[in-house]
């Protein structure tokens, strides 16, 4: 069958099982947009290419399937760079297809030409510039393979316009040809046995659970392992939902804005069982002072993470789901099988008393009647149906979202952890809703973030993708303001945004959304209830929150995790 390169691309995506792509057409990608008309693949027309990238990420985070975005060359490719970098940091499988100028024009500074593969080399797992249409099916197959196996991540296919128009003989490859890419998935039996022994010996162990557990679909296996060991769990920002917050062994999130108990449990532990986490600086604080007494078991699919920050006593390369299953077995076998657990009652009691003494706390009944952002998130969480997905932007609202929402399922928390991309929430929520139309999707957003990507609510309205946005409007770039208040002698530099410029309600309505403004605590619950009733349109609730609120607990940047600042609610304690 003779078809064009463009047809081959679309057909390859179909063969790969793609049901939806996020994109925006333009000159160099025009040939690809013609066969899209005839394809069963749903195309969602975004308003900005960055939105297409984040939607693909949101789709992938909510479904564990690769998200796909198609955009044109030059400025479209550079617009999607942020999403690629974001997906690379958070190990999100997305496949981005960019148009490119004709092969004969490459290197001539042609109209809308950019060196896309060069620009994206260090923020993709791999990228391809296709020079001949016959390569298309092979490259598409390899791209999806690379994106979704091993440590997941973004890949990019750059497709010149003349290659799209070139005729080729259709085929579908049986295998990938990647001699240099063979991820290790099974843990080494000797390491597994050594890890099992350390687990049995530990008196003060903590499971340190990261986003890798969610990417690997290992939540159920993790629960079995944790309950078998009866050991406490912390879930990192990327790992929220990998283990249920409601579980008595869950200590919440560690790190800069984690719970006192999660931070301190790691700090005082004698064993960190690290699963799909990477000792990020926001988790460790000052590395030299991090968990000084702890031995480390480190399980990761990416060998380069083992020993990158902290040397592991037992490093295990492998798929975290397989390794957890192997660990569950190993605990009953061999030398470890003959040992009892050493975790102490004192440790459990200690954790419990920390939880009671230092819970997350905010002023629940402020005398001045101000609206506390934490209260808004708490109400959102309580009123949301089970399994609701929460997307988030980046900043204070993200931390409150992570702290005060109860995550009980994997793939229900969609956020930008590593790169910290402001404006992530709205497009990511849309992508998540496209992937999981059966679930309610809320986004918690800040006013700074909202202004960066709000235009995608037009996409949501036009494509009938109903998402709900809780806009915590404190009229500031709140997290920056917090740092200026705490570390720059309250010298506020360029952080004020205004509460009513723009008018968020009018803006949301102009984009086809139902919009509400909430200014008092009394209106929070009734308005959320109203929003939860609406399922045919997107809803924006603007909450005018107390601009003075800061995120606590906080480990100041550069400090060790022994120096947790608990905030004003604990003063005098």
């Amino acid at each position, binding site marked *: 069958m003779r078809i064009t390169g463009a047809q081959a691309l679309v057909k390859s995506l179909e063969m790969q099982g793609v049901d939806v792509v996020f994109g925006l057409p333009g000159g160099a990608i025009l040939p690809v947009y013609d066969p899209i008309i005839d394809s069963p693949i749903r195309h969602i027309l975004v308003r900005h290419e960055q939105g297409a990238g984040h939607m693909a990420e949101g789709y992938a985070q909510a479904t564990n399937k690769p998200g796909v975005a198609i955009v044109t060359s030059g400025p479209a490719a550079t617009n999607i760079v942020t999403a690629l970098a974001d997906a690379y940091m958070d190990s999100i499988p997305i496949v981005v297809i960019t148009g490119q100028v004709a092969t004969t024009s490459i290197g001539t500074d042609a109209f809308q030409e950019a060196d896309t593969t060069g620009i994206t*080399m*260090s923020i993709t797992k791999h990228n391809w*510039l296709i020079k001949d249409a016959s390569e298309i099916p092979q490259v598409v197959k390899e791209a999806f393979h690379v994106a979704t196996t091993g440590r997941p991540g973004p890949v990019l296919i750059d497709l010149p316009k003349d290659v799209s128009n070139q005729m080729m003989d259709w085929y579908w490859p049986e295998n990938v040809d990647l001699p240099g890419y063979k991820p290790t998935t099974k843990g080494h039996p000797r390491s597994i046995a050594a890890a099992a022994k350390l687990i049995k010996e530990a008196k003060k162990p903590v499971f340190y659970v990261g986003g890798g557990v969610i990417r690997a679909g290992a939540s159920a296996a993790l629960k079995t392992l944790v309950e078998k060991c009866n050991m406490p769990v912390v879930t990192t920002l990327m790992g929220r939902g990998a283990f249920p917050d409601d579980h008595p062994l869950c200590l919440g999130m560690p790190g800069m804005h984690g719970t006192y108990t999660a931070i301190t449990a790691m700090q005082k532990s004698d064993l960190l069982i690290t699963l799909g986490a990477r000792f990020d600086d926001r988790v460790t604080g000052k590395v030299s002072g991090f968990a000084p007494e702890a031995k480390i078991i480190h399980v990761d699919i990416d060998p380069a993470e083992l*020993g990158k*920050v902290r*040397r592991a006593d037992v490093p295990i390369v492998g798929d975290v789901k397989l390794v957890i299953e192997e660990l569950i077995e190993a605990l009953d076998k061999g030398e470890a099988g003959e040992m009892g657990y050493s975790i102490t009652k004192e440790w459990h009691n200690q954790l419990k008393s920390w939880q009671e003494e230092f819970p997350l706390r905010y002023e629940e009944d402020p005398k001045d009647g101000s609206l506390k952002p934490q209260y808004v998130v708490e109400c959102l969480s309580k009123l949301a149906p089970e399994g609701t997905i929460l997307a988030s932007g980046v900043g204070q609202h993200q931390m409150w979202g992570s702290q005060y929402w109860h995550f009980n399922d994997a793939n229900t928390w969609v956020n930008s952890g590593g790169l910290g991309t402001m404006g992530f929430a709205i497009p990511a929520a849309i992508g998540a809703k496209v992937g999981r139309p059966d679930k309610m999707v809320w986004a918690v957003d800040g006013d700074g973030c909202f202004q960066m990507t709000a235009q995608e609510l037009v996409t949501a309205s036009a494509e009938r993708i109903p998402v709900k946005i809780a806009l915590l409007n404190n009229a500031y770039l709140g997290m920056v303001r917090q740092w200026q208040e705490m570390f720059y002698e309250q010298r506020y530099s360029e952080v004020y945004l205004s509460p009513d410029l723009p008018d968020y309600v009018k803006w949301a309505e102009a984009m086809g959304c139902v919009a509400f403004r909430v200014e008092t605590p009394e209106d929070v619950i009734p308005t959320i209830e109203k929003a939860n009733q609406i399922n045919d349109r997107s809803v924006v609730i603007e909450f005018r929150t107390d601009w003075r609120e800061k995120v606590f607990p906080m480990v100041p940047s550069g400090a060790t995790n022994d120096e947790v600042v608990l905030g004003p609610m604990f003063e005098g304690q």
Partner: protein
Amino acid sequence: MTNTPPNLIPMSMPGGKSSTEFGYHVLSVLVENKAGVLARVAQLFSRRGYNIYSLAVAPTDDERFSRLTVVVDLESVTLEQITKQLHKLINVIKITEIDPRESVQQELLLAIVAADTQSRSQIMELAGIFGAKVIDVGLERLTLALADTPDRLDDFTDLIKVFGIIEVQRTGRVALTKLARPSSRGGMNRGKAS
């Protein structure tokens, strides 16, 4: 609580156990012979803040693959981290660390030396001792070529400096592991025979 466990030393800090007494390590990296491979390797080093001391690239006998010989400076990062990051590149097939003591290494040097009628014979004599070739001759200049170990090239450069070096060019290093050979004491003791 006060005694620091060994795993607390961050891997990225010097003082780890890797053998850095030579100051550099030679990596022989087999890569797929695809467009942009060199850029990928170079960008990885730059992006992660690793220092390349020298780099040589050439096709192998199998046209699907090329071999990069990279001499890396281990000031800021461990060899382990560099090789692991390199391995993440999809086009990298195999990485072999070449121990300077267990390998043969060569570089090529080209030098234009000032050579008037008085010094010319002395230079040619020196070239003869080192096994350098005269590959170009001008009225008052000679171009010499010498392929040898990096140390010998350093020595040679120092000696010809006296006559006046107009221009000098050195390639990156290429290296191969030393061949095993039987020793008189039996076994396969390497690096003792010569």
